[in-house]
C-alpha cells in the first residue's frame, strides 16, 4: 500500500533518521532543511503531514527564514547576533508560517515541549499544530494521525 509522504524539517539528520527507523511503516519520509527546500518538496507532490524541529542552530544564516536586520532593529536594539540567535531558536515556526502562507495546511507536529499558552498561540496562527515533548515514536505516530 502506498504510504503518505511525511515532510521532515530540521537542520540536521536526527529527525529523518528517527522517522525512517520508527515511522517508515506508515510514512514515506521526505526531508528538507529550509523553507525553500520544503516548498520544492511540496511542489513535487503533496504531503500528508509535517514533522518539525523548532531550533535550527546549525543552519547557515543565508538558509534561515526571517529578516535578521529587521528583527535586530525591532527586538534587539540593532544587535544582529541576538537577532540571528532568535531566528535560529524560532526557525521551525517561521518556516511553518511560510508554508501556511503558501497554502500548505497539513498537520504540523513539533518535537518540542511547548508551554500550553504558546501551543495555543501557534494553533491560533497556524491551525493544525501539535507538539510532543520528546522522541516518543508512539506519541509522535499518534500526533501525526489522530
Amino acid at each position: 500500500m502506498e504510504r503518505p509522504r511525511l515532510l521532515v524539517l530540521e537542520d540536521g539528520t536526527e529527525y529523518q533518521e528517527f522517522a525512517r527507523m520508527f515511522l517508515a511503516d506508515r510514512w514515506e519520509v521526505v526531508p528538507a532543511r529550509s523553507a525553500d527546500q520544503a516548498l520544492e518538496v511540496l511542489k513535487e507532490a503533496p504531503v500528508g503531514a509535517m514533522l518539525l524541529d523548532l531550533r535550527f542552530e546549525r543552519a547557515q544564516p543565508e538558509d534561515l527564514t526571517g529578516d535578521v536586520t529587521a528583527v535586530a532593529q525591532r527586538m534587539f536594539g540593532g544587535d544582529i547576533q541576538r537577532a540571528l540567535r532568535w531566528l535560529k531558536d524560532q526557525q521551525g515556526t517561521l518556516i511553518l508560517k511560510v508554508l501556511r502562507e503558501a497554502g500548505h495546511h497539513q498537520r504540523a507536529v513539533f518535537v518540542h515541549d511547548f508551554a500550553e499558552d504558546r501551543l495555543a498561540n501557534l494553533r491560533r496562527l497556524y491551525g493544525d499544530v501539535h507538539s510532543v515533548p520528546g522522541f516518543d515514536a508512539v506519541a509522535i505516530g499518534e500526533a501525526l494521525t489522530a
Partner: protein
Amino acid sequence: MTEPRTKHLPHDSMHDAMHDSMHDLIHDLIHDVAKYLTRVARNLPKDGPIPEVLGAMLVKDLYETHRQRPASARFDELAHAIEDPALRAGLRAHLTEIDALEQGVRSGDAPSMRRAAELALIFDRELRAFVEASAGG
C-alpha cells in the same frame, strides 16, 4: 535570482557567548542534551535483542550528541544554569556512568546498552522535573 530570505552574515562564532539568561541555558540543556540523548532510549524494544541499526543510533545519541561530542561535554558547558549543586552533580553522575559504558554500548553489549538507555531516561526525567518546578516556583 531569488532574493535570499536573510542577508548574508558572518557565522556567529560567538553563538554560545550570546546566551544571556539562565532560562536560555536550561532550554539548551533540554534541547541539546536531553532530547537527543533519549531519541532511541525512549523507543528501545522492551526485551529481546537490540537491532544493530538501533544500536548505532544509540551510540550517536549518547556519544555524538552535540556536534559529534558526548552529551556529557555539552552538559558541562551549560550546567552552570542549574543552581542546585546536588541536582547538578546528580545529573552529571548519570552522564558519567553513560560515558563509562561507552565501550560496551559501542560493541553491542545489550546489558550496557539497556543500562545506558535507562540512565538517559532518568537524566531526562530529572532535568524536566527541575524545569517544571522552576517554572512553577
